[in-house]
C-alpha cells in the first residue's frame, strides 16, 4: 500500500456510470469480485439501457453499475451512492441527482467536450457553472492519462482509449484499498488470444492506482473491513447464475436431467446461456422458435421423464399462458421461471418490476391453479429454484418461480452450499412402474396424501396411456363430459395446490421488540430494502414487525393468523398492489400498500418513511 493515510469506513456505495461503450458493467463486476473476495458483504445494482448501444454520449446510452459493500451484513445496493464515477456528461447528468449531498464525484474531465455536453443536453459545463458545489468533485483527465500510459503500446487509438475504464477501476481500487492482482489475472485470461490488449489494460489499471497514490488530489484512501458473515466458503453470485445452479442442483438431487425449452428475452436469457454451458450434467437446452414452443418442448420433455424447465420474462409468460393451462390439466411437473421486468407490454425491458404476480396466479383460462415461489435475494434464487422443482415434481404440477431483473443481475456474496445438504428429490420423483388398477394403469388415480397423480414415463412397459387437455374422468383419466366429474376435477386440482400449504414452512415474523403494531410484509426482491428499512425504523425507535413470503400460492398455513396479529399491515411492492389484493381477499385484512413502479428497487429510506408514517397513524 502507499504512503497516504487510510481511513476505516463501515460501508460504502459506489456507482460507476458511463456510456454503454465505456465498459461500466465490466468495471463494476471486477470491483465487485475483488470486494467479495475481501470478505465484505455486498449488493449490486447494474442498470443498463434497452438498446445495445445507444449513440455514444447520449442520455439514453448511459449505463450504470452500483455497488454497496460493508463490514457488516447489508441488504440493498444502497439508496444513494457515496461515490459517483461519471465517465462523460451524459452519465453525470442522469446520475448526479442520486449522489449523497457532499458525496464524492469523480469525472473523466476529458469527456467534457462541447459536443458531449450538447449530447447530454447541458447548456453550460457543469464542471464550471458551480452547479456541483455541494459535492467533492475530482476532475481526472482519464482519457489523457490512459493514452499516456499506453504511449508506447502497439495498439490502435480506439483500443487504447477503450482501456480508460481500467483507469477508473485502478483509481477507485486504490481509494478503497482493493488489490489489483485478481483483475490482472482475469484480464490476461480474458484476452488470452490478444495479449497486447491484456497488457495494455493491466498497465492502465496500474496507472489509475498510481494516480490515486501519487497525485495531490486525493489526500487519503479508505478501507472496509471484512464482514462477519457466517462461517463458510463464499463466492459472489448473481441471481440468474444462482437460479441456473439451483436448477442443476435439483436435477442432480432428483436424478432427472434438465430439459430447458426457452426463447431469449431480457433479463432471462442469461439462464439459458448458463445452462447451455453445463452439458456434462446432462443438461439439454433448446433455443426454441418462440416462447410457446419453448414451454411446449419443456412439457413434452416432462412427459418423457425429464425435469422440464422454461425460462422467460413477462411477455413470454403471456405467450405461454395457454400451455401452462395444459400443464395444469395434464398434471405434469414443470418449472416456469419468470424474470420480471418493467411492463406492460415491452415496457422497460432492462428494468425491474414485480407486476407479474397476478399474471402468474390467474393468467390462464378456466380454474387453473399454479403454485408460486419467489426468491428474496440473488443467492436465494438457488434455493428457490430447488424448492420450485421440489413442488413441481412432488405434486406433478407446473410451478412459477418469480424472480426479477434486480435479482437476476444483482450480485451478493453467497455461502457455497454442500450438495449433500440439499433436499433429496429422488423420492418425490417416484415414477410409476406397475399398473395401479384392475384395468391397468390409471393416470389420474391420485396419491391420497398429496393428491398427485402417478407419473409413468414412455419406455415403461405396460403403462401405456394417453393424456390431454380435455376434462378427464377422476381416476381413469378417460375423456369425460360428465358435469359432476368436471366439478370434482376442478376442486381436486384446487385442493392439490392448496394442500401444498401443509408442506411448506410457516411464515416467520421478525419482531425483535415483540410489541410492534405494524407488520410489513413483502415478497421477492423487495426483501433487502424492506429488511433494511425495518432496521432503520427500529433504530429510530419505531417498532415494526417484518415478514416475507416465499410462497405466494398457496400462502403458508399460518399467514392469516400472522396478519391478524397486527393493527396495520403494510405491503410494499414494485407494482400497484398485487400481493396486497391477494391478502385482502383471502384474509380480509385492511392491508395498505406502498407502491412505486419506477423500474428500480426501493430505497430503504423511502420504505422507512412509509413504515414510520403508518406506525404514527396508529393502531386500529
Amino acid at each position, binding site marked *: 500500500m502507499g504512503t497516504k493515510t487510510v481511513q476505516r469506513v463501515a460501508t460504502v456505495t459506489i456507482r460507476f456510470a458511463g456510456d454503454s461503450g465505456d465498459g461500466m458493467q465490466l468495471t463494476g463486476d471486477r470491483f465487485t*469480485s475483488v470486494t*467479495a*473476495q475481501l*470478505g465484505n458483504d455486498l449488493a449490486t445494482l447494474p442498470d443498463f439501457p434497452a438498446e445495445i448501444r445507444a449513440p455514444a454520449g447520449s442520455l439514453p446510452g448511459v449505463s450504470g453499475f452500483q455497488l454497496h459493500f460493508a463490514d457488516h451484513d447489508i441488504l440493498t445496493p444502497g439508496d444513494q451512492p457515496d461515490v459517483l464515477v461519471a465517465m462523460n456528461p451524459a452519465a453525470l447528468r442522469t446520475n448526479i441527482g442520486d449522489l449523497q449531498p457532499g458525496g464524492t464525484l469523480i469525472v473523466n474531465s476529458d469527456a467534457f467536450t462541447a459536443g458531449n455536453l450538447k449530447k447530454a443536453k447541458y447548456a453550460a459545463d457543469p464542471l464550471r457553472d458551480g452547479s456541483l458545489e455541494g459535492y467533492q468533485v475530482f476532475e481526472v483527465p482519464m482519457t489523457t492519462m490512459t493514452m499516456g500510459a499506453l504511449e508506447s503500446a502497439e495498439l490502435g487509438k480506439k483500443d487504447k482509449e477503450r482501456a480508460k475504464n481500467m483507469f477508473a477501476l485502478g483509481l477507485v481500487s486504490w481509494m478503497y484499498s482493493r488489490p489489483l492482482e*485478481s483483475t490482472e489475472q482475469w484480464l490476461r485470461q480474458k484476452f488470452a488470444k490478444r495479449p497486447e490488449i491484456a497488457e495494455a489494460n493491466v498497465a492502465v489499471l496500474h496507472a489509475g492506482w498510481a494516480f490515486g497514490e501519487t497525485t495531490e488530489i486525493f489526500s487519503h484512501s479508505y478501507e472496509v473491513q*471484512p464482514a462477519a*458473515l*457466517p462461517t*463458510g*466458503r*463464499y*463466492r*459472489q453470485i448473481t441471481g440468474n447464475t444462482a437460479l441456473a*445452479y439451483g436448477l*442443476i*442442483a435439483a436435477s*442432480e438431487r432428483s436424478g432427472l436431467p434438465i*430439459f430447458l*425449452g426457452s426463447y431469449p428475452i431480457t433479463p432471462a436469457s442469461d439462464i439459458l446461456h448458463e445452462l447451455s454451458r*453445463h*452439458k*456434462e*450434467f446432462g443438461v*439439454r437446452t*433448446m433455443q*426454441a*422458435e*418462440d416462447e*410457446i*414452443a419453448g414451454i*411446449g*418442448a*419443456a412439457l*413434452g*420433455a*416432462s*412427459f*418423457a*421423464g*425429464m425435469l422440464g424447465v422454461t425460462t422467460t420474462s413477462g411477455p413470454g409468460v403471456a405467450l405461454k399462458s395457454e400451455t401452462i393451462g*395444459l400443464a395444469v390439466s395434464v398434471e405434469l411437473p414443470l418449472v416456469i421461471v419468470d424474470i420480471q421486468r418493467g411492463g406492460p407490454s415491452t415496457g422497460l425491458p432492462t428494468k425491474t418490476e414485480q407486476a407479474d404476480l397476478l399474471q402468474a396466479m390467474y393468467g390462464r383460462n378456466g380454474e387453473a391453479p399454479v403454485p408460486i415461489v419467489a426468491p428474496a435475494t440473488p443467492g436465494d434464487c438457488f434455493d428457490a429454484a430447488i424448492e420450485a422443482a421440489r413442488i413441481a415434481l412432488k405434486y406433478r404440477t407446473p410451478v412459477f418461480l418469480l424472480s426479477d431483473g434486480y435479482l437476476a443481475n444483482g450480485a451478493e456474496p453467497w*455461502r*457455497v*452450499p*454442500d*450438495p449433500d445438504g440439499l433436499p433429496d428429490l429422488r423420492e418425490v420423483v417416484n415414477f410409476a412402474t*406397475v399398473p395401479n388398477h384392475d384395468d391397468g394403469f390409471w393416470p389420474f388415480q391420485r396419491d391420497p396424501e398429496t393428491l398427485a397423480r402417478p407419473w409413468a414415463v*414412455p*419406455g*415403461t*412397459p*405396460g403403462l*401405456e*396411456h*394417453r*393424456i*390431454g*387437455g380435455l376434462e378427464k374422468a377422476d381416476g381413469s383419466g*378417460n*375423456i369425460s363430459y360428465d358435469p359432476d366429474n368436471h366439478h370434482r376435477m376442478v376442486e381436486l386440482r384446487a385442493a392439490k395446490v392448496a394442500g401444498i400449504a401443509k408442506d411448506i414452512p410457516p411464515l416467520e415474523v421478525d419482531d425483535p421488540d415483540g410489541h410492534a403494531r405494524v407488520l410489513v410484509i413483502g415478497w421477492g426482491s423487495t426483501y433487502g430494502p424492506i429488511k433494511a428499512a425495518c432496521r432503520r425504523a427500529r433504530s429510530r425507535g419505531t417498532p415494526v414487525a417484518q415478514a416475507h413470503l416465499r410462497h405466494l400460492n398457496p400462502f403458508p398455513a399460518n399467514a392469516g393468523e400472522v396478519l391478524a396479529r397486527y393493527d396495520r399491515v403494510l405491503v410494499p411492492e414494485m407494482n400497484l398492489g398485487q400481493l396486497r389484493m391477494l391478502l385482502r381477499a383471502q384474509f380480509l385484512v385492511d392491508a395498505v400498500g406502498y407502491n412505486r413502479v419506477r423500474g428500480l428497487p426501493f430505497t430503504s429510506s423511502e420504505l422507512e418513511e412509509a413504515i414510520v408514517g403508518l406506525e404514527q397513524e396508529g393502531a386500529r
Partner: protein
Amino acid sequence: MTTALPLTKKDFVTDQEVRWCPGCGDYAVLATVQGVLPELGIARENLVFVSGIGCSSRFPYYVDTYGFHSIHGRAPAIATGVAASRPDLKVFVVTGDGDGLSIGGNHLIHALRRNNNLTIILFNNQIYGLTKGQYSPTSELGKVTKSTPFGSVDQPFNPVSVALGAEATFVARSIDNDREHLGRMVKLAAQHKGASLIEVYQNCNIFNDGAFDAVRDHKANQIRLEDGQPIRFGQDGEMGVVMEHDGTLRMAPVAEVGEERVLVHDAHRDDPGLAFALSRLSSGPTGPTPIGVFRQVSRPVYGLEMQRQIDDATARRGRGDLAALLAGTDTWDVP
C-alpha cells in the same frame, strides 16, 4: 412386461370408442397406421403419439402406445421435447391442415428445419372439421364456408411446397383410403432418421365431402413417385412427366414425347429443387397429382446432436461435479 414382439395390429387398438363421424377418412388412416406399427419392430412402450386439436388430433386416444392430445397447433413443439430428450423413443405427430398449417405453422416449419426425429402425419381435409366447417389454409381459393360465405380470397398453401421450403428432409403425400400406399409411406417416414412429413389427403365427408375425389377415386390422376422410376401415370401409364429445357415440368403423353424423355424420380437428390418442382405439378387435388416420397435426404438429427454434445462434454470434462460447479473458481473463506 414389455409386450412380446412381434406385435399385431390388435396390440395397438385401445379400449376407447372411436368418435369420428361415420364415413370419415380418419378411420382408414387409423387402421392403416395401426396395421403398420407392428412392422416397425418397436415395442409399444417406446412409441409416442402427440397431437394437437382437431378431429384428426383425437388419433392418439385410439392407439395403444403412450400418447399426448395436446393443444391446438403445438404438437410439433411438444413432440420435439419428447424426441429431443429421449432419442430412444419413436415419436409421431398427428395434426390437421388447420392444426399444423394454420395455428401451428411455425412449429411445423421449425420442426422440419430442425430435423428432429419426428414422423408428422398431416391429415389434410382442406377444412376445419372439429369446429364445424370453416375454410383452412389448404382450402381452394373461392371456397364457400361458414366463415367465408362469399368465398375465400386467399391462396392456399401447398403443404409439400411449404415443407420443402422449410428444409424438410423427408416429404411424402398419400391418400387416406389407399391402404397399401399409405402404409408404405408411413413405414418409410417412420424409418427416416430426422423429421418426416406425410401429407394425407383425407376426406371429411361432413364438411368437405369429395374434396379429393379427383385423385382419390381416379387412379389415373395419381402420379406415383417412385424413387429411380420414370414418373408415369394415367390409366395405363400412358402419361409421363417431362422436363422442358427451361426446367419447367409438364405432363405429356408418353407416346408423344418418347419414353426416354420421361423424368426419372430421384427422391434422394440433395438439392430440393426437383422435389419442389414436382410439388408444383398440381395446385390442388383436382387433376393429376403426385403422391409418394418427394424427398428423402440425410442430415444431422437434432436430438442426436444434442446427445452427442452431452456425451462429448462428459467425455471431455467428466460427469458434472455439483460441488465444483457451485464453488466456481473465485471463492473465499469466512472463518
